[in-house]
């Protein structure tokens, strides 16, 4: 098909954003984003409800026009090269976009024709993506008979049908059971290896974000942090240590007097934040003076990262302010 000779597209950022702003009447959904996503990267976009994740994706896939700023996808400008952008991206929206009267395969056939997929290879490609998401046996059934997870998998298969360079997934795992969520991430990893595709995914689930090469944390229309999950967590710098003891009160006093730590009872455990949990535990046993029944050391999670950057946990940020877990909040302040 009409590919160019010349510099391979792979050299250009898969997603390139400069000063991106989107204003709806009174709401400023996106307030100036700069971002480069490298080809082949799995990039996570994290943030609470209303952060502007979907709006950013809609701009990138040419569905809404930006108020100002530049956005390029696979090297094409979303404002001036609309069809080229569309040809090179796969989309899975937050809301379902399947025709439930049609069968799974008919939905894919429709998509292939709409995207001008080469007829000679279309059938083989349909089989390939349907097998990948485990729907080949169900291909002849109307989508209305599919479960929520199957529909989501079908949408992912459809998004891949025309071999896009960049796959946008807006909360692909929302409302799915843990097993299905895990299997969707398995497909995404497989894609990453097999097709060198760039994956741009938004999610609310912190544990899922760990699957990404890099993540951006978005809050109120801005990117407040951007790095690998490991570096982001390292930057928080605190482990959480939780112990159950014979006498919590005495333990808290001992921690304050002997270790200079500010501990509190949370959810039935004495909880504290320390720089290096693993090396702290032996000192704790040696010096606490109160019998310890159990110890849990938690490495910082992306929840903690989110908290450190936004002042609330991702769940709390979706609720009215002021409900953040005090211990976690204290840990975040302690950085």
């Amino acid at each position, binding site marked *: 098909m009409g590919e*160019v000779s010349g510099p391979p597209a792979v050299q250009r950022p898969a997603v390139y954003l400069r000063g991106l702003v989107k204003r709806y009447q009174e709401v400023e959904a996106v307030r100036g984003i700069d971002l480069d996503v490298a080809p082949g990267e799995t990039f996570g976009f994290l943030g609470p409800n209303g952060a502007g994740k979907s709006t950013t994706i809609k701009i990138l896939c040419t569905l809404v026009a930006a108020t100002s700023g530049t956005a390029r996808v696979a090297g094409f400008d979303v404002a001036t090269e609309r*069809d080229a952008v569309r040809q090179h991206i796969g989309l899975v*929206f937050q809301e379902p976009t399947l025709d439930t*009267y049609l069968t799974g395969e*008919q939905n894919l056939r*429709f998509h292939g*024709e709409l995207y001008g997929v080469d007829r000679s290879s279309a059938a083989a490609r349909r089989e390939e993506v349907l097998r990948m998401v485990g729907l080949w046996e169900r291909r002849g059934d109307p989508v209305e008979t599919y479960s929520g997870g199957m529909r989501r998998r079908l949408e992912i298969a459809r998004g891949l049908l025309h071999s896009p360079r960049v796959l946008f997934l807006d909360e692909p795992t929302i409302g799915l059971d843990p097993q299905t969520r895990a299997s969707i991430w398995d497909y995404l990893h497989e894609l990453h290896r097999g097709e060198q595709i760039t994956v741009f995914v938004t999610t609310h689930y912190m544990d899922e974000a760990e699957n990404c090469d890099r993540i951006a944390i978005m809050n109120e229309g801005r990117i407040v942090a951007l790095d690998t999950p490991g570096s982001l967590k390292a930057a928080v710098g605190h482990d959480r240590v939780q112990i159950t003891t014979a006498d919590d009160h005495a333990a808290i006093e001992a921690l304050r007097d002997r270790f200079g730590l500010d501990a509190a009872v949370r959810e039935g455990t004495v909880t504290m934040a320390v720089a290096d949990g693993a090396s702290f535990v032996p000192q704790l046993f040696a010096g606490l003076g109160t019998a310890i029944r159990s110890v849990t050391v938690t490495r910082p999670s992306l929840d903690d990262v989110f908290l450190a950057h936004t002042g609330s946990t991702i769940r709390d940020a979706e609720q009215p302010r002021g409900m953040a877990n005090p211990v976690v909040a204290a840990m975040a302040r302690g950085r």
Partner: protein
Amino acid sequence: MSTNTVAAVRVPTGGLAHQARAALVVWQREMIRFGKDRTRIVSSLVQPLLFLFVLGVGLSSIVSAGNGSVGFTTFLFPGVLALSVLFTAAFSGISMVWDREFGFLREMLVAPVSTTAILTGKCFGGATVATLQSLILLALAGLVGVPYSPVLLLTLVGLLFLMAFMITALGLVLAARVKRVESAMPMVQLIITPLMFLSGALFPLSGLPTWLAVLTNLNPMTYAVAPMRTAVFDQLDVDALTRATLDPGIVWNGWAVPVAMQVAIVAASCVVLLAAAVARFTRTE
């Protein structure tokens, strides 16, 4: 090649063949959905049949058509064909509201094809469905004294298809603004009723008071019904007076509009309405 040429990359989009493929698959989807929806096929035939056999037979005792050589149901037949197409095609067009509600509209609108291709496919789909449905009515021609002449049948099918395309496009124009599924059916009623009553489908256009004549002349459906009726009357053996009463054609301020021009007006309406629908859908989302 230098990086400067990157902006000029030709991806396989925008080509006429690609657009045609997109339109074709949208059309195919309408066919698949039509084939699956048997109840819709049957239920949308009920209304035209009631008009033809209940209204038609009921009124024929008081309506003495000319010297009685033409039955009222015979007169009504082309009008009822048009009504059946009106109901089905208007629904096809407005069904885009459901496509929006269930998200499928977005799947179509983010594809690398023009909105024109998608809506053209939709109009051809609506027109095909409506025309197929009217074939069932057409098969009843003999019952109401309309001869099964191949030329007549082909002419009627062609005109019905053209009219159905126009009405589907009109339905699309309205669907672009209706965001809520609950408002869709009232909207269908809102367009169907005036179009139906002001088209000459149910009564002859001869001797109307001026206000009614003006309104019928403004209705694009009038220009689809009149040629169909003329085609039917061409096959009947009737005296000039009866024909002038029941098939007066369309008169603009004393000038008889030729049949070819009537058909051209319908064709032009198809183009204008389709263009309006494209403009509206391009602006929303």
